[in-house]
């Protein structure tokens, strides 16, 4: 469990980080909390010549929740997401989900940026960001651009981000007051990735569902934003039939693989159970 040798860089602004990335091309990679990257390096599945540490780049930190949008710096840790009261009252779904990631030790270092940029289908935040319709602000040699979370994930470890781009900030529209939310996750133990997880937002107006968003985690090689599942809820009174239809649509959309957590048949079943519980909880919170 010893990684191959590498050069370590610690720039203090995005520009400097970008030039190191440009200089070394394929050989270079940014490191945030290191809790996904370092294990890969120790397993020698990632061989990186130049490690560019983002810890000292102040402009990648900070959480703002004014206006209708929350803006979260890529280097904000999962621990900070949990302890930031402004964020918790604006988007309580983020705290609920973050508390289900790993354990406190990991969360002290693991960042939101690393979690969403990583591209590992096991990560919880990509699905969460799709559910929330987040926008990822990427900064590269040619300036900045924004990619919606729902269009960011291409395959396991492949994203819309170019090698020479850094994820700088995440912009999340703050859901309207009274939006019901839930993050439900089944895992084998504390510190484990999801067997199945789902993020749900539900808005109700006059007794019927006016808007919904549903995303599923670790049930395909990318997170699955299940538009059809949400559509099954919208316009309904959130009755049992609508909820079941939403579950059926989501299970249709996922494509899990068999692994140590269990065979495909089991994962599909559990995905449905987990989603149903998330819908039930979100609906009970919607007003």
């Amino acid at each position, binding site marked *: 469990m010893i990684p191959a040798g590498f050069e370590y860089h610690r720039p203090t602004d995005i520009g400097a980080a970008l030039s190191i990335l440009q200089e070394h091309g394929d050989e270079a990679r940014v490191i945030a909390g290191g809790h996904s990257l370092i294990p890969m390096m120790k397993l020698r599945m990632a061989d990186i010549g130049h490690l560019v540490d983002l810890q000292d780049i102040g402009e990648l930190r900070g959480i703002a929740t004014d206006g209708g949008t929350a803006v979260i710096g890529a280097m904000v840790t999962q621990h900070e997401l949990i302890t930031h009261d402004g964020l918790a009252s604006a988007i309580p779904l983020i705290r609920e989900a973050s508390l289900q990631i790993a354990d406190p030790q990991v969360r002290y270092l693991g960042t939101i940026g690393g979690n969403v940029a990583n591209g590992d289908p096991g990560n919880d935040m990509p699905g969460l960001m799709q559910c929330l319709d987040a926008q990822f602000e990427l900064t590269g040699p040619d300036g900045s651009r924004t990619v919606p979370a729902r269009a960011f994930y291409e395959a396991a470890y492949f994203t819309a981000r170019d090698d020479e781009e850094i994820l700088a900030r995440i912009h999340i529209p703050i859901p309207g007051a009274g939006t019901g939310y839930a993050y439900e996750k*089944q895992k*084998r*133990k*504390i510190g484990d990735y999801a067997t199945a997880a789902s993020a749900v937002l539900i808005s109700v107006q006059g007794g019927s569902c006016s808007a919904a968003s549903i995303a599923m985690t670790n049930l395909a090689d990318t997170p699955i934003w299940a538009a059809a599942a949400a559509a099954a809820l919208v316009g309904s009174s959130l009755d049992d039939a609508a909820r079941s239809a939403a579950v059926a649509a989501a299970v249709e959309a996922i494509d899990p693989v068999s692994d140590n*957590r269990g*065979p495909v048949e089991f994962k599909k*079943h*559990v995905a449905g159970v987990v989603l149903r519980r998330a819908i039930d909880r979100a609906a009970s919170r919607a007003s």
Partner: protein
Amino acid sequence: MNEQTLTPEQRTANLKGMGTSRKRVEDVRFTQGKGNYVDDIKMDGMLFGDFVRSPYAHARVKNIDTSAAAAVPGVVAVLTAADLEPLGLHWMPTLAGDKQMVLADGKVLFQGQEVAYVIAEDRYIAADAAELVEVDYEELPVVVDPFKALEPDAPVLREDIAGNMEGAHGPRKHNNHIFTWEQGDKDATEAVLAEADVVAEEMVYYHRTHPCPLETCGCVASMDKVTGKLTLYGTFQAPHAIRTVVSLISGLAEHNIRVISPDIGGGFGNKVGAYSGYVCSVVASIVTGKPVKWVEDRMENLMSTAFARDYWMQGKIAATKEGKITGLWCHTTADHGGFDACADPTKFPAGFMNICTGSYDIPTAYLTVDGVYTNKAPGGVAYRCSFRVTEAAYFIERMIEILAIRLNMDAAELRRINFIRADQFPYQSALGWEYDSGDYHTAWDKAMKAVGYDGLRAEQAQQLADFNAGKTRKLMGIGLTHFTEIVGAGPVKNCDILGLGMFDSCEIRIHPTGSAIARLGTISQGQGHATTFAQIIASEIGIPADDITLEEGDTDTAPYGLGTYGSRSTPVAGAATAMAGRKIRAKAQMIAAYLLEVHDDDVEFDVDRFVVTGAPERFKTMKEIAFAAYNQAIPGIEPGLEAVSYYDPPNMTYPFGAYVCVLDIDVDTGEADIRSFYALDDCGTRINPMIIEGQVHGGLTEALAIAMGQEIAYDDMGNVKTGTLMDFFWPTAWETPNYQTDWTTTPSPHHPIGAKGVGESPNVGGVPCFSNAVHDAFRSFGLTQSHMPHDHWRIWKTANGLGLHG
């Protein structure tokens, strides 16, 4: 207050002897991060070794090119089997009478097998260079299923012994067969089965898992070319035996070898055997003249050093209609992996599996075990149990439940009517053991009362009714277990390892000022020996435990012993400690009598002193006696006050216990939620109740791990699927339930202080208890057996198979 005015109770309390919850003296350094483990050892010029390991489970090694690795600056040497062969060290003997490749000799037999050993100036260089060793493999067909391994056309795994049909434990019936071990009366058992009212039959699988101690295996070998002495530090549960083995296989004289086990971060059986890392490090140090360190990483530990269990136990249990058990039959197929490297006493190739009649008075029984080679890692060690006792306990405790189902009886009642009665001890079991003592009914009734058994069953019935009415999706399970262990190996007449009798030892020296040092042949890996053995001495000779230093693990200073595993330290070395203490007390009595000018028989021992019979004001404290031993010329008595005892136990000890687990199962997700766990242990005389409780908590948590998720799983290609802690289940505080501990005390009649050993009981009893609880939740839906580990998807699969998903 002075020596005169303290009451006997106060003086007893000052000793902190047996029965006291004395705080662990080890914890002062452990809790401050000041322990001294193998990887903490740093020596001048120390080199580091790292292995190149096989990615394949079965392959021919056609060529190994080490040139690129050897050319890396900082690499000192790269060893392969070809380098070890001239020394005769490319293979080594195993503890089970087999031999094992130190480095791949022409082929590999399991994924992770050691192929080459890189020695470099630091561990980073060693790891980089190991990547550059080029090995040319030719893949061979892989066999991971022991039943397939025995098919007529199965590939021959061990070509080195192909056609040699006489093994270390008798005839071999197939090239992939290792031994057949047979116990009990076949004909009588078959007759009982044929005539019985009821016979329940089932295959009970105890899956492959791994002890996975927090600290992995490692060593530092240091050859001093000037003195010709080899010092070997290592994570050894049996340092003296390792010294003898090193001497035998290296040809170095035994007095020139010093083996030191420093602090050990858990062993659980993983650190009993000898590994390639030790041999290669010793060779590397001899060749280079420099100290060489080797420490496994976690994946290497899980993939290559000793696994545990992997027993397929086909069982038949016969009973009358009323539930009286009349016979037990068991055939076990034991998967040993590529080499037979089990750590069992020589005459017991399947360990003490013949304790599988458990706590029950079963008049007739028959057991056979077939050991089989497969393309998996070698091992088969006793993971927190005495040799194969956990397999035996799991087997019988499942068979009892299965029989209860067949008889439509309550499983607690079925146990009660079949327990060996207190008046039957010493009890001769059908499979050859003499149980020294026990009182199972008392323990069982206490347990049932403590948990409110009838109330639990009523609650379960209500929950089942609610489930059937669609009001809940959770099922309640009540797991019962009454286990009997056999520990403290053991009598030299039938227990040895590599010909070394399994006695153990203690040497005590009393210093002139009345404090003491004691050394034992065992070695603590977390059991707290420095605390508890000092308590035995304190009670035996009346010196405060706090004034006694306890040392283990240095073969140059400690007396010879067979080490710590199989709960043998207290039964064997603990007995030696008491006996050595008694020798000292006997001499102290003579000194006291001389000082008090009375006859030897006219003084008697009183807590911490000898008192003239009938004249309590006339006494000599142990402190005074110790000083006299060193400053007075006493006629007929040698100066000094020390003693050594080598203890050969007359019998094993038989700890037992009654456990109850209550859990809820979510049939939709397969999750199990442990509601409560009650553990009553009877380990005979209790030396330190706090340490017992700690041992029980630890053992139960390992039992939880094994029963609920921990496994070494292989795919069909022989790839290890659970090689990291992401997939190999280690419970955290979060998954660990609260435990309620309890006890009864039935002292061992043959042990000097009546103690039996406890560290392994909770694992032996815990695994069947958790598993039985899972099974019990589904009993009313017709489940008889579903194999461990009971992780989410397997529980879900059970529920699904029973039609519970609608």
